[in-house]
């Protein structure tokens, strides 16, 4: 028994030592850390004119390397110009951003961030819940906001007469085309689409399917929610006088009233079935791998493609109009920086936000990360238009209108399910469309603030 008891002794001793170390460390760690996340206000010491109060702002956003870099740059300059403000900047991984934000807001003041970003579609709910404060007039007035920013980048942040957020991460929807694949089938990648039928035909030409096996897809339709959003909104905006797709009185979708929208849904399902294949390179980025003729995407995809497929030659063109000759359209999306009601100092919060979203700031965003501007004046500025693709992108800012989702993730799900039911489940498009409309109406109801 002797050897084993000696071994036991040493393990037991090890456990004891670790336990004691742990206990001691825990005791040490229990003392609050030096940089506390909660904003504090300590009165200034100097005897002369009362010094501005010390302010700590907690700023949260979801992580992106280039954006984190840009914000660090702004933070350094802002803290330089405003010596009494300290910014605690946290860049949180995208998938966990919601969990962390929800937990912090639930815990309330002291844990919740002062400045953070939310998708434009959620601003209304946040405001209704009394979570946000409007943009401070002293920093920038509502009128000035309307004059400076592209209307569609700020209108979803407006409630009543006040604006509650300033835009960042502005995106539109455009079609990316693989130059090489286009030239192989004798198509010109730089020629705009005539209409949706033209898009379909090009996609069909680019598809290589034989006997159940696919070698190349004509069009990656995987971004189901983008396709359907731009298709339906395009119709209502261009042909129905800018009709919103949620009726303001009934709070229900107006889609069933317009048979063309069902037709668009059927068109999309047909495109997805004929020019795309779920089972082809499942889970991979088909366009980056050079196996897809075209796909819908945001301007930010340029950065992604640069990293994933630096040698891929592609052209960006506007989305196809429903019928030939109609004016161009795209659906635009963005996030908003907002200030929480629990923030210690609203003025500093908004000063900081405006510092990061004003005109000079937007130039910095573009320089560091290739982000799009939202200032009217910058749309035609040559520094943003360095190549043909950039021209198309910048022009799209002029004819965009914002995505009209009420809520957020449910729409992704419903759009995807509706398409899947038809293409994979062989359900009748009418039935699937109606199910989608019913479900989305329920979602709108859930997310419409109850007064």
């Amino acid at each position, binding site marked *: 028994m002797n050897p084993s008891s000696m071994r036991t002794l040493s393990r037991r001793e090890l456990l004891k030592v670790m336990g004691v170390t742990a206990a001691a460390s825990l005791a040490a760690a229990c003392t609050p850390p030096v940089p506390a996340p909660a904003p504090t206000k300590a009165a200034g010491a100097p005897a002369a004119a009362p010094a501005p109060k010390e302010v700590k702002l907690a700023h949260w956003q979801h992580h992106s390397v280039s954006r984190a870099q840009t914000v660090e740059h702004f933070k350094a300059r802002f803290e330089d110009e405003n010596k009494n403000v300290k910014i605690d900047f946290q860049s949180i991984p995208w998938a966990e951003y919601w969990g962390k934000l929800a937990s912090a807001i639930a815990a309330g003041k002291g844990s919740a961030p002062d400045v953070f970003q939310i998708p434009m579609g959620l601003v209304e709910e946040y405001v209704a819940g009394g979570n946000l404060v409007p943009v401070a007039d002293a920093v920038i007035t509502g009128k000035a906001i309307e004059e400076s920013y592209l209307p569609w980048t700020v209108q979803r942040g407006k409630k009543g007469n006040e604006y509650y957020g300033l835009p960042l991460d502005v995106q539109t929807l455009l079609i990316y085309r693989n130059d090489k694949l286009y030239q192989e089938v004798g198509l010109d990648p730089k020629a705009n689409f005539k209409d949706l039928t033209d898009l379909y035909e090009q996609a069909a030409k680019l598809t290589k399917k034989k006997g159940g096996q696919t070698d190349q897809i004509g069009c990656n339709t995987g971004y*189901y929610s983008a396709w359907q959003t731009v298709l339906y909104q395009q119709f209502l905006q261009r042909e129905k006088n800018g009709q919103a797709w949620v009726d303001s009185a009934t709070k229900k979708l107006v889609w069933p009233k317009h048979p063309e929208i069902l037709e668009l849904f059927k068109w999309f399902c047909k495109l997805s079935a004929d020019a795309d294949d779920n089972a082809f390179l499942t889970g991979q980025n088909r366009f980056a791998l050079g196996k897809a003729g075209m796909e819908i995407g945001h301007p930010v995809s340029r950065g992604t493609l640069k990293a994933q497929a630096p040698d891929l030659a592609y052209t960006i063109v506007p989305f196809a109009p429903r019928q030939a000759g109609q004016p161009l359209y795209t659906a635009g999306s963005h996030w908003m920086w907002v200030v929480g009601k629990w923030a210690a100092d609203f003025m500093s919060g908004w000063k900081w936000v405006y510092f990061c979203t004003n005109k000079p700031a937007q130039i910095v965003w573009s320089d560091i990360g290739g982000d799009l501007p939202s200032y009217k004046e910058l749309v035609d500025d040559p520094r943003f238009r360095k190549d043909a693709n950039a021209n198309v992108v910048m022009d799209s800012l002029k004819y965009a209108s914002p995505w009209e989702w009420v809520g957020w993730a449910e729409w992704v799900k419903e759009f995807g399910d509706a398409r899947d039911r038809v293409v994979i489940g062989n359900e009748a498009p009418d039935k699937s469309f109606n199910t989608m409309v019913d479900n989305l109406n329920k979602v709108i109801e859930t997310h419409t603030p109850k007064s």
Partner: protein
Amino acid sequence: MATAAKAFAITRQRWSRQQRREALWAYAFLSPAFFFLLALIMFPILFAFWISLHDWSLIPRHFPFIGLQNYLETLRDPLTIKSLRNTLFYTVGAVPVSMAVSLILALIMNQEKLPFRTWFRTAYFIPVITSWVAVSFVWLWLFEPRWGLVNSFLGWFGITGIKWLASPVWALPAIMLVAVWKGLGYNMVIFLAGLQGIPREMHEAAKIDGANRWQSFWFITFPLLNPTVVFITVTAVIGSLQVFTPAVIMTTVQGEAGGPINSTRVMVYHIYSTAFRYNRLGYGAALAFVLFALILVVTLMQLRLTQREVEYT
């Protein structure tokens, strides 16, 4: 032992000193674990149950009490029914296979005569510690309907046309295969630990008596392994009913997981999605408690059926 029995018989109405002493020591050993769990886990669980009785929308700050309405909704919600079915299918399929294969592996790895034994044990354990991102990428490729190795392998036997992760029928089995594959080493290690304790004398005595390998296993090893088997069965079922990562990482499209027509949507993903993507914490909590009830019932049944004291002769 006899003394205690007599003492018990005499003092049946009240606890003997012996029993009281035992109980106190038991509570002493139990307290640290129990009180930590009580404070840090059970209490939040109760709080979560409280939330499930409300329509808890964090952002609109809207918390009306609605009693059991959330629970009634779960019964009517087709997405919930689908998630439950997927999860049950997953559990019933994955657990027995995983246990059987890992037991076989453990038996093999327990043989002293196996050359390179340590290398094999390590190799079979490595999937457990390999990053899910790497596992997902390689398996997505293996399951690729046209070029992947799985379909090539099946092709030799004349089986073609299975679209695996793109098929509403085969996506879930594909996930199960990956999850079982990744967890083999885990259960293998536990079985190994269990096998280690079975004294060699038992097997030697059996061999002398003329038992072959199978009889030695079935009549000696397996019964003595009962506590380990019970442990693995119960924890594997509890774990499988709460499966999350395999189903999500391999079937996420546009941030939404669940495979073609929700065929790989599992309960815990459904709960997570409802609570954090759709922002319905009350309903999400109710879903969690429905799952909890299911797991509890299944576990109690299992414990009832399999628990027996091991007697040494």
